[in-house]
């Protein structure tokens, strides 16, 4: 990650009214980086600084070795190769959908598109915009508007896509409609994205990397799963703590409708519609869905009973604790979270370093390529 040529280096410092921003982070210049924190922690300000919409003296920003600002340099917003999706779609009311989409598109001779560039037809297809082209932004629904705004940003051929809570102004259903579009973007385009959100479910579905912010400062940054399973950070301690993995499909059992997924240090069985082997799918395992046992259960409806090692245990409140587990019989695989009661912990005489069996009651599987419907599968409770 210290490799400048392939990373995003940001350092923004300054006073904004009564708010002090002091945020510095380095993340890879690939994939989606989630910028997460409570409302008012300064994450949107960081994004505006990256875009050049806000200027804080003494700040630096570079991406893949290309410096956009430092002590002596400040590239204005229109000189930075970015795409920006605001919370409200902010479409140009005086232009049609097509006019909006093409506003920032560089002019190039017809038929000649560089292999690097994002094509008009590709964006239309990716975001389902074909039926909207000749409409006026005034006659679009909130979700449609936001999709046009995303398409407009993509067609300006950015080298970095900045998204400022693009779904937070939408209702739950519309949000679920748009998330698969974003997942497809992630899959199809090799465009680095910085995605600001205060909604952990969006981050869990989209982000590869995470920058955690609080009160104008960065408190941690790193791969999503690593930060999710760090008991010293607020994510693991939260009510809906969970970890996400990008798993590889091993095989599909069409008799029972079960897919076998390979993770680092374990295999998971998950009910799902048919999928091809080799596909990458994101799974989510909530801490509340994992229970612990000293021995492999002999007779149980639970499909996934995985050997793990207890890495750490941190009390959450008077009655519960969160346990970090490492998958694999050697105990050196991916990290998993379990929320257990302190009473169970004491009765089973559990301790750090011990080998235990993690029983996973439910695994949520994100929809894959071509599937636009959310198909979260959950096993019946044991």
């Amino acid at each position, binding site marked *: 990650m210290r490799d400048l040529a392939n990373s995003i280096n940001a350092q923004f410092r300054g006073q904004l009214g009564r708010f002090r921003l002091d945020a510095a982070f380095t993340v890879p210049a690939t994939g989606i980086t989630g910028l997460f924190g409570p409302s008012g922690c300064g994450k949107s300000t960081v994004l505006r600084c990256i875009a050049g*919409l806000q200027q804080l003296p003494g700040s630096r920003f570079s991406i893949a070795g290309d410096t956009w600002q430092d002590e002596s340099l400040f590239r204005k917003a*229109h000189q930075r*190769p970015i795409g920006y999706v605001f919370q409200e779609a*902010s479409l140009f009311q005086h232009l049609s959908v097509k006019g909006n989409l093409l506003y*920032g598109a*560089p002019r190039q001779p017809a038929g000649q598109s560089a292999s690097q560039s994002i094509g008009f037809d590709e964006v239309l297809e990716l975001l389902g915009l074909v039926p909207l082209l000749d409409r006026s932004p005034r006659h679009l629904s909130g979700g449609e508007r936001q999709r046009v705004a995303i398409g407009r940003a993509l067609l*300006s051929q950015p080298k970095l896509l900045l998204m400022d809570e693009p779904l937070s102004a939408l209702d739950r259903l519309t949000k679920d409609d748009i998330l698969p579009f974003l997942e497809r973007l992630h899959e199809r385009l090799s465009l680095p994205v910085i995605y600001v959100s205060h909604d952990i479910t969006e981050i869990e579905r989209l982000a590869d990397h995470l920058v955690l912010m609080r009160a104008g400062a960065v408190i941690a940054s790193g791969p999503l799963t690593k930060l999710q399973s760090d008991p010293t950070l607020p994510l693991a301690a939260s009510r809906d703590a969970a970890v996400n993995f990008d798993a590889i499909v091993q095989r599909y059992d069409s008799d029972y409708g079960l897919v076998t997924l390979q993770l680092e240090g374990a295999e998971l069985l998950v009910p799902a519609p048919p999928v091809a082997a080799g596909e990458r799918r994101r799974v989510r395992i909530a801490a509340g869905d994992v229970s612990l046992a000293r021995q492999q259960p002999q007779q149980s409806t639970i499909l996934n009973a995985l050997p793990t090692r207890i890495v750490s245990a941190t009390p959450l409140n008077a009655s519960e604790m969160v346990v970090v587990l490492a998958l694999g019989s050697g105990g050196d695989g991916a990290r998993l979270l379990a929320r257990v009661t302190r009473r169970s912990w004491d009765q089973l005489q559990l301790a750090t370093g011990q080998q235990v069996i993690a029983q996973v009651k439910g695994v949520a599987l994100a929809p894959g390529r071509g599937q636009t419907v959310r198909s979260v599968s959950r096993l019946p409770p044991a």
Partner: protein
Amino acid sequence: MAGLPPDIWQPVRLTVELAAMTTLILLIVGTPIAWWLARSKAWWKEGVAAVVALPLVLPPTVLGFYLLVLLGPDGPGGALAGLWGGRTLAFTFEGLVIGSVVYSMPFVVQPIRNAFDAIGDRPLEVAATLRASPLKAFWTVAVPLARPGFLSGAVLGFAHTVGEFGIVLMIGGNIPGTTKVLSVAIYDYVETSQWREANILAAGMAAFAFVVILTMMMLEKRTARIKG
């Protein structure tokens, strides 16, 4: 229209020329002022706004008096006229245009500024993130979005120039074909008891004013629909 004096249409033509010229100049000069008033964060900009708005409250004779001094042989207007061998800008068509520009300025600048204000920062920020230079953003985003403001500014500026009287009398006098505009002509006809001629011009002005107000109201309705 038999029996009408042949020169009754001269003031009409002169007035339309004056108003058209004034409106055109005001759109060119007033737009950057309106843009600056809408976008600048300078603490003294409201002072500038007040100066622009001054003709709204100043008695036209007061404004006309100072304009007369400025345009006269001893003022900058006289020096300007000297460039083409003239002695003064007072009592000339050019002087009248300058006076009208000053007098009608607030009626053009205010609606355009309000329209720019209503756009807000966001569309311009969006344009910047789409690689539009500030100039491109101005022409392709700000101006089209502020179009209703430009329309009402142009209509109001034109109408007010047509109707001005006090300033014209102070700095233009009453020279047929040069400074004798409609309002002065009506006054003139009344002074010489030519009521029929005065009535024709006055009725024409009333009809014109009605059309202007109607246009404005329809424009506003349309704007409200676009925004809503």
